[in-house]
């Protein structure tokens, strides 16, 4: 696989850019082995931000993408999709967490920027060794189990059943109703509980 990495550094408004010198990080990334393109943008996850990634993949013939922004637990799926729309495998992509694990926990601009560069270097090193991966599909049993026959379980069971799916409702006691059945009138309307 050719090494043509694109690095996209997000400002996240001021969430990242106020502590991390994102321009500096992008300049640094441009000189890393394998990187052919790098840039910054105010909101990478926004529509124009994603469009920027899609366009850059085509214009710069990118083979791998690194996005330095928030936690991958937040937006990994978002960017993976954007990368796929750009025409390359979504797993030839790595995300660098320079918000939750950098700009939000450090105040020193120099140190935080240095950390961001290190993390980008790490991600570039990794992404060059990524391989395309493919999602497989498995069938679904179209039936639900609800554990507990109180008000929560009954409501969930009814809603799922109304949508047309079979539901098994398991209850520990010999009746459904749960604690609610023990209650008298309920606030604020003072309806009877049953």
């Amino acid at each position: 696989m050719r090494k043509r990495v694109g690095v996209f550094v997000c400002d996240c408004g001021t969430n990242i850019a106020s502590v991390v010198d994102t321009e500096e990080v992008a300049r640094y990334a441009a000189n890393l082995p394998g990187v052919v393109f790098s840039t910054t943008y105010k909101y990478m996850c926004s529509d124009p931000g994603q469009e920027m990634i899609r366009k850059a993949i085509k214009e710069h013939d990118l083979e791998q993408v690194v996005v330095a922004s928030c936690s991958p637990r937040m937006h990994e799926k978002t960017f993976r999709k954007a990368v796929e729309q750009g025409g390359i495998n979504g797993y030839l992509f790595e995300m660098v967490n320079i918000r939750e694990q950098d700009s939000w926990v450090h105040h020193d601009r120099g140190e935080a920027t240095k950390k961001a560069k290190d993390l980008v270097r790490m991600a570039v090193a990794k992404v060059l060794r990524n391989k395309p991966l493919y999602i497989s599909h498995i069938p679904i049993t179209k039936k639900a189990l609800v554990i507990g026959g109180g008000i929560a379980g009954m409501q969930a069971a009814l809603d799922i059943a109304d949508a047309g799916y079979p539901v098994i409702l398991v209850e520990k006691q010999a009746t459904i109703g749960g604690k609610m059945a023990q209650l008298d009138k309920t606030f604020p309307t003072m309806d009877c509980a049953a």
Partner: protein
Amino acid sequence: MSIAIAEEKGWEPKIIVFACNWCTYAAADLAGLNHLEYPAQVRIIRTPCSGRMDPMLVLRAFNRGADGVLLSG
């Protein structure tokens, strides 16, 4: 090197953290959400689970000059 001398010379430790995606990595994110400050010398590597950790990786980090390795998950 004693800590006093180290500080004088501007030495900074290099600490590598291997963090499980489901707990420690999430906790590190939570620390971020709450803006809890900690030293910037910490570098986190995300692992899918601490079960994935291989002693080889810890040795590799020390071998390459890491001053401390934290394994958490």
